[in-house]
């Protein structure tokens, strides 16, 4: 029964059906499936979604819907996890930089990273350096990720790096940047450690940053 529900959950994620994903996750939990196993199943589904994107079968709207489907399931599962343990590949604190409210890309990256087994703390949009610093101190992630959609907020990525240094937390994290207005050359300008061009690339880059 669990296997069938897990298979249905994977299909719901791959097909981008949030309601179905929620229903199947509820069934799985009711039938006694371990949250960690459900998350692994979700990861496999998101991996399939990523492959479809790379194969040009899927586009951003498909990623958005798959991400929504996975998040519906995660909402039910995450409260059941007592601690963030070794079942996760790594921990990331992520947000859209101060002054920017565009979060389509960030949301996809968050979902894909979760699907790839990362524990992601999503700080949302228009995130101040102070909020990043507080989250880093509290969550102790290996990576901090920030995005800028518009060219006018790229300076904020640079400021964030400076503020993290001032607060003494920069040395504890790798700094990953991305977003529509960000290019590889910005890594140096901003003082980041890495850049990811899209959500799929973000998985590989994040894995490298945590040594996996």
């Amino acid at each position, binding site marked *: 029964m669990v296997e069938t529900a897990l298979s249905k959950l994977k299909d719901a994620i791959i097909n981008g059906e949030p309601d179905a994903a929620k229903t199947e996750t509820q069934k799985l939990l009711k039938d006694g499936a371990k949250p960690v196993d459900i998350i692994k199943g979700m990861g496999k589904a998101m991996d399939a979604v990523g492959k479809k994107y790379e194969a040009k079968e899927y*586009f*951003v709207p*498909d990623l958005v*819907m798959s991400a929504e489907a996975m998040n519906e399931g995660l909402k039910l599962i995450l409260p059941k996890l007592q601690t963030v343990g070794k079942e996760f590949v790594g921990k990331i604190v992520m947000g859209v930089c101060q002054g920017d*409210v565009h979060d389509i890309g960030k949301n996809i990256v968050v979902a894909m990273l979760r699907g790839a087994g990362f524990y992601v703390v999503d700080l949302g949009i228009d995130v101040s350096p102070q909020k990043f610093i507080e989250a880093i101190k509290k969550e102790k992630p290996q990576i901090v990720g920030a995005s800028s959609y518009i060219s*006018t907020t790229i300076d904020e990525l640079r400021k964030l790096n400076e503020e993290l240094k001032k607060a003494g937390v920069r040395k504890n994290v790798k700094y990953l940047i991305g977003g529509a*207005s960000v290019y590889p050359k910005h890594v140096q300008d901003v003082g980041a450690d890495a850049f990811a061009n899209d959500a799929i690339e973000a998985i590989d880059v994040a894995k490298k940053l945590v040594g996996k």
Partner: protein
Amino acid sequence: MAKLTEANIDVEIDKLVEQFTDMASKEPQSMMERFTKVMMFQEPDRLPVFMQIHDHAARVAGVTVRDICTNAKKMLYAQLFAAVKYKFDTPGFFADAYNYEAEALGAKMLFPEDSFPVILEPLVKEPKDLEKLDIPDFTKAGRGPYIIEGSKLCLEKLGKYGFAFLVASAPWSMAVQIRGFNNLVRDTRKNPEFAHKLLDFCNDVIEAFVKAQKEALGGVVAFPALADAFSCIPPTSPQLVYDYVIPHTAEIMKRLGPMMWAGGFPIMEIPDWEQIVEDVVVKTGSLVGMVVMLESDWLPPEKIKEISNRLKKPWFFGVRAGIISKWTPTEIEKHVKNLIKVLCPGGGCAVFGDQVPRDTPPENVQALVNSIKRYGKFPISIK
């Protein structure tokens, strides 16, 4: 550079107008003449040079992005300042074009000092919210008066050297702005009837906005355009382009007459991209085609030239923001030279700066402008 105040802004604008018109009067053809030739698939004396330059213009002119997005005179000042500094052919009066309609409808906005305004939350959170919205009177609502005043001022000040851009959102992008991207995508899957209804409403609003601008400008509109970056692929899928973007864009063109439409294009290599590029231009009735990713291996300029020739439609080729801000002046010159060599013989084309980021080194902007002028002389003969 004098500090700009309410008291001296008119004088400072007039000084720039004098410099700009002096520069333009020494040219063999005006921007309007060059542009007309391009649209007729003929050869002007050289390529027109126009730029999407907003936040960078604000920076070099010493005003804030908020200033140019809210104050028509400061916008005109910054545009003229940049046009005179870099010697391009026309100021352009539009910046955060995707926000105007949503703001006029009542969207809550944030106006950061040094960044473009942003919509804080979608107006149509639930389908029933659409019923509460009325078509705005753009002579009064939101920044309608700012747009209209600015465009009129630009034409009045520059006389025969003036060039009136008219920019509105295309229906898909406007729908993204008032509904939110994720909600709109969900609508297309769960409630397609509502998605079409929403796009119909967007067309009603766009029609009102374009008509208000045309009326205010007395019919002197050189370049009516619908901006539609949100409909490019992969932000949108080919299926959504064919099912929603093309039909609703074609509808608004039918109502308002042909305009330039910048949307629907693949910005990554996908199967059938050539067919999609053709379809988005032909099926919408767009006046021109427009592409920007011409440094990509998968999008050789030669292919686009073939399509342009086959369709007998003029095409505008954008030099991407990342190239303008991050390449060296020498690399920019080489890129522009190659684009013009392949794309521009025979006319019917223009090369422009597709958003100049704020932190772009001025020498890069100058290299772009100089290269278009240098290599864009007709007849094109680049070895």
